[in-house]
Structure formats: structure tokens, C-alpha cells
């Protein structure tokens, strides 16, 4: 490596290697407060309205190129841009002598505030409006369109952080890799990049100020960004990756360690646009079926029948395989109007997950009834689990309720440190345990999982988190209960070895992560995994643990 290369460290959230010039996600335009109008209100009005209409046209064109929900979202945005009352307001503001860009920005802001005031259901629409505003204002100011740039060649995308809306314009054939300053392993960037199969590093503060066009190499597995990399280094890493890719194609089927210990490899599932594609993944089933999507953006709970139809579709698709359904996990980052308590001072510590059934027992009962009806005759091996279980009594109560509906296998998620510390009792009180490592890290370190500044504490390699996982896995062994992991931790091939070393019996992850994890398992014996687990546990911090395990496991 040459002395001119600089290494920047972040958190690798999506594996892969890429090298190329960087481009920044263009920020939202800022309207100069003293922007002078031309003095001709009619001209300003014409220019302002034309910019908004052009933005609407552009959204219509994008919408026409798509199908399904994405097309509907863009068509709805175009409709907002064409709103006659909004147009009138813009004209009125220019008549008051405001410059076109100022009038557009102010009119949009007024309507956005109205929508925001109409309640939490309107939050997404308010965000849509903000997006249209920024596009129209950028057009008026002649600055780059906010969002993903299009320099005409493949590039590494740099950003402060990515919002879900940014993905609409993200073309994976032009973006080589993603690096963000903020965000942790559970950020939107992590989820988006994994689903697109792009290498990604988050929480990499060192990229700030990096000029566009600078060449970098991104290693999404190691969380490394090398500025002005040595060509030999890039070649070496790419060769290693290619060797790995070809090794991956050589392993398939159920997860096994090198010495034949079975480790179920499962996928995480939510609202799917194309179930068939997901079901085609080489997985032994679904380790986490999130059901919140059925309940979001509604004023009341879906009926038992409506739920049954949705669940039955998934169960039939996965006939012959296991499907672990997580009952409604409302609250905190997933508020529901008809469940979430308003004005909770600290929603993450409030009435969420299984706790909501204290206030709304019918909701859980209806959901279990719908799951049981959908499971009957579907051919799938349906398990249910409750989120946010804190005590053995809660686990026992949930299991009894599920059993009463004819659901034979009911488990508890271990996301609260209390449940991990009492894992033997919790395991004995139900049929299986599933570690939700994202929330378990958040609660163990008292660090908000969305707070990018605290990414180091949320690192799933933190020894304190691993200790709780170890206790839980041991409790499973002692009581004869399966223990799975369905958080982001399961999708890291190195960490997967550590988890298996502790005694975890199944790993659930995004389908794109399966091949790497399957390969890593096939290259290590259970005894090797146990040695790696002990090593990670002894490390002074997450980073050191990861490095020690990486060094010891030359195969990954």
C-alpha cells in the first residue's frame, strides 16, 4: 500500500468490494432569505408555477415507468404538485412581491404544516410534500436536484444518511457502493443496501468533506473505506472476493457446520411485493415474519378474516417449511394510531410489543385466531412468538394463549436484558426463544438504535451483548428449547460463527445474506465456532472482538 492512501473506518453493513469515484447525495436546496424578486410579480408567478408543473410532469413520467405501489406513490405526489389551492397560494405570494423560489418554498411549507398538524397518519404525505418542494425549488434556483446524482458513470454514493425516499432514484447499475457519515447497523442505509446487494459502510464520519470524484475502495464486510487506494490492494481484495463468490456457488441447502451440526438458515419477511421471489431463496423457512404492515396507516385493527387471508398467502407459499410469525410489535419506532399511547415520554420504554396486549387483549387474541385459522391445512410449520417479553410469566401467558388457539409452538423474543438474564426460566415457560439483537443492543446499552452517533455502542460485537446471547443460548440447550437469532447480527458471516459457537440453533436474515453465512458455516467446525465465540466474548470491545475473530478465521 502506498503512503498516500488513507483508511477510514466505519461499520460494514453489507458485504462486497467496490472501487470508484465518489459522488455526494445532493442536499435539499436552501432558499436565500434575501433572494430578490424581479419586480414583476406576474413573471415571478409564471416562473414559479412552471417549475411546480415541470416537477409534477417529471413525477408523472417516473410513475409511468414503474408499476405497483412505487408508481402509485409517485402519481400521488404528482397530484399534490398539481393541487389548485397550492397553485393559488403560490400566485398570491408572488403577488405580495416574493421571489418565485421563496413563494414556492413558503406555500409548500404552509401546506406541509397543515398536513403534519392533521396527525401522525399524514407524516408520510408531509414528507412527500417536502420532497416535491425541494425538487421545485432546486429547479428555480438552478442547483442540482436533491437526491442521487447522475454523473453518467458508475460511482460510490456518499451521504450524511439515506432516507427511504432516496432509494426511488437509486439505480443499482450506477451505484457501486454506499458510504454514509451517520447511521448504525439498523439504519435505513443498512437495510436498503442489503436488499440491493450493494457493499455499504455506515457511521463513517471520516468521509465528511471528501471531494466529488475522489477514488475510494469500499469493503462492506470490513467496514473499511480506503481513499486513493493502491491499485494492487484493490486487485488483491477483488481477487479474494471473486474466490469467495465462486466458493459460495459450491454450497447450498440446509445450514451445516463443517462437522455437520445443523443450523437452520431462515429469512426475515415483512410486506412483500413478490412473495414468489422471496420464497425461491435457498432457506429452510421464515425465521421472522413481521406482521405490522397489516396494521399500519389504519384507524382500526384489520379483521380476523382480513388477517387470515394475508397470513394464509404466506403459509401456503412456504408449505413444507417453517414460518415463525411475530405477533404485532407496535409502539416506539412503529406507532399505530389505535394502539400506541399518545404522549409516552419514552416510547421505546413504553407500552409496546407484547405489552400492548395488556391494554388491548382482543388485538392479540384476534391475531392468534387469524394465524391459527390460516395455518390450518396450509402445510407450513407455523410457530408464533411475542415481541418484547420481559419475564417468564409473560412468556408463559403468551404460550398458554397461543396453545389455546391450537398453535402448538409458541416462543418469546429475547430483546429485553431482563429476559436474557432470566433465560432459563423464560425458556422453560414457552417452546422456543428468538434473539432480536437490534433491540437487545439498544436496551443493553441504553442507546437509541436510530442514533448514528452511538453506533459503536450498538455494534452487535459488543462483548456485553454477546454475554446476554451466550446466557440465552445456554438456557436453550439446558431446557431443550431451540434458540434463534433474527436481528442484523445473524447476517454477518463472522458473527454467525460466534452465535453458533454459543449454541444458537437457527439464524434468520435478509435473503441476500444467506449464501455468505452458509459458506462460512460450511468452512468451520462447531469446535472452531466455540473457540471463536470465546475469543469474541473476551475482547475489550466490539471492534477488537471482530478483528480478533477475523484474524483467527482466515477462511472468511
Amino acid at each position, binding site marked *: 500500500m502506498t503512503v498516500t492512501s488513507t483508511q477510514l473506518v466505519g461499520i460494514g453493513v453489507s458485504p462486497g468490494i467496490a472501487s470508484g469515484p465518489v459522488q455526494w447525495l445532493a442536499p435539499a436546496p436552501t432558499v436565500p432569505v434575501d433572494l430578490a424578486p424581479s419586480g414583476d410579480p406576474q413573471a415571478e408567478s409564471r416562473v414559479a408555477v412552471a417549475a411546480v408543473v415541470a416537477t409534477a410532469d417529471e413525477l408523472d413520467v417516473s410513475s409511468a415507468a414503474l408499476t405497483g405501489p412505487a408508481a*402509485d406513490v409517485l*402519481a*400521488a405526489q404528482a*397530484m*399534490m404538485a398539481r*393541487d*389548485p*389551492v*397550492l397553485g393559488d397560494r403560490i400566485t398570491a405570494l408572488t403577488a405580495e412581491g416574493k421571489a418565485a423560489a421563496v413563494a414556492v418554498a413558503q406555500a409548500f411549507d404552509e*401546506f406541509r404544516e*397543515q*398536513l403534519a*398538524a*392533521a*396527525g401522525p*397518519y*399524514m407524516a408520510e*404525505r408531509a414528507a412527500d*410534500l417536502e420532497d416535491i418542494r425541494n425538487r421545485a425549488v432546486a429547479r428555480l434556483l438552478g442547483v442540482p436536484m436533491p437526491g442521487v446524482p447522475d454523473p453518467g458513470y458508475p460511482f460510490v454514493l456518499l451521504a450524511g444518511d439515506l432516507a427511504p425516499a432516496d432509494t426511488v432514484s437509486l439505480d443499482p447499475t450506477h451505484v457501486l457502493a454506499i458510504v454514509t457519515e451517520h447511521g448504525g447497523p439498523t439504519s435505513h442505509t443498512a437495510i436498503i443496501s442489503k436488499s440491493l446487494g450493494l457493499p455499504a459502510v455506515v457511521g463513517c464520519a471520516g468521509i465528511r468533506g471528501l471531494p466529488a470524484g475522489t477514488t475510494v475502495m469500499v469493503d462492506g464486510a470490513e467496514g473499511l473505506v480506503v481513499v486513493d487506494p493502491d491499485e494492487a490492494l484493490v486487485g488483491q481484495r477483488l481477487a479474494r472476493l471473486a474466490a469467495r463468490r465462486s466458493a459460495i456457488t459450491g454450497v447450498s441447502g440446509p445450514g451445516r457446520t463443517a462437522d455437520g451440526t445443523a443450523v437452520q438458515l431462515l429469512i426475515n419477511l415483512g410486506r412483500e411485493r413478490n412473495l414468489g421471489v422471496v420464497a425461491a431463496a435457498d432457506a429452510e423457512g421464515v425465521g421472522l415474519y413481521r406482521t405490522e404492515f397489516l396494521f399500519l*396507516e*389504519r*384507524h*382500526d385493527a384489520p379483521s380476523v378474516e382480513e388477517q387470515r387471508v394475508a397470513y394464509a398467502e404466506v403459509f401456503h407459499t412456504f408449505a413444507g417449511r417453517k414460518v415463525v410469525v411475530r405477533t404485532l410489535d407496535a409502539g416506539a419506532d412503529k406507532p399505530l394510531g389505535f394502539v400506541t399511547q399518545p404522549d409516552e415520554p419514552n416510547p421505546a420504554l413504553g407500552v409496546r410489543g407484547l405489552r400492548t396486549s395488556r391494554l388491548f387483549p382482543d388485538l392479540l387474541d384476534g391475531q392468534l385466531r387469524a394465524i391459527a385459522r390460516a395455518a390450518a391445512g396450509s402445510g407450513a410449520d407455523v410457530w408464533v412468538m411475542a415481541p418484547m417479553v420481559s419475564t417468564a410469566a409473560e412468556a408463559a401467558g403468551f404460550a398458554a394463549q397461543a396453545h389455546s388457539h391450537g398453535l402448538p409452538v409458541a416462543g418469546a423474543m429475547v430483546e429485553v436484558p431482563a429476559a436474557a438474564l432470566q433465560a432459563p426460566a423464560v425458556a422453560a415457560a414457552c417452546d422456543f426463544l428468538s434473539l432480536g439483537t437490534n433491540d437487545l443492543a439498544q436496551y443493553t446499552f441504553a442507546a437509541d438504535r436510530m442514533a448514528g452517533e452511538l453506533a459503536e455502542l450498538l455494534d452487535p460485537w459488543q462483548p456485553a451483548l454477546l454475554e446476554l446471547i451466550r446466557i440465552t443460548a445456554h438456557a436453550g440447550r439446558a431446557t431443550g428449547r431451540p434458540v434463534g437469532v433474527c436481528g442484523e447480527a445473524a447476517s454477518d458471516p463472522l458473527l454467525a460463527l460466534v452465535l453458533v459457537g454459543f449454541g444458537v440453533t437457527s439464524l434468520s436474515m435478509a435473503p441476500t445474506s444467506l449464501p455468505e453465512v452458509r459458506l462460512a458455516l460450511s468452512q468451520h467446525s462447531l469446535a472452531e465456532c466455540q473457540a471463536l465465540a470465546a475469543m469474541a466474548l473476551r475482547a475489550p470491545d466490539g471492534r477488537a472482538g471482530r478483528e480478533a475473530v477475523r484474524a483467527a478465521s482466515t477462511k472468511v
Partner: protein
Amino acid sequence: MAQRNVVIASSVGLHARPASLFVRAAARQPVKVTIAKVGSDPVDARSILSVLALDARNGDEVVLSAEGEGDEQSLVELAALLERDLDAEP
């Protein structure tokens, strides 16, 4: 002036797709139609932003008003739309 009270039948309320369908239908009418929640100020039914900001939910009663040639017929058509569960339809 024609007026008509309607209860929102859509399970998601007058949001999302039902709101779009309603606003598009209002824009097709020969007369200007307003919509209000009972007790609140009427807003232009052709304005998606104003209709969304009403936050009319399933079971809420709204008042449609119009004045001019064909106002009765316009309200009959729009009211019929609101009385269906638009979100449940394909």
C-alpha cells in the same frame, strides 16, 4: 345551493387512494364542490392537500356543497363515491 351529508365508508378514511379517487372525481365536475367535516370550514374538493388535511376518518360525517348548473347531480355522484369502501375495491 346544494348540500349533502355523507358518512365516510372507506376503512382507511378519506386518505391515500380513496382521497385521490375523490379529488379526481371532484375535478371532473362542472361546478366547484367543497367538502367540510361537520363544524369545520369547507375546503375545495379538487385540492388533494386540503382534503387530506381534513383528516376525515372512517365513520366521520362530511358535508358536500356546490352551487350552479348541475350541482345536485355532482353531489349525488361524489356522495356515492364516499359511501363506498374505496380501499377495499381493486
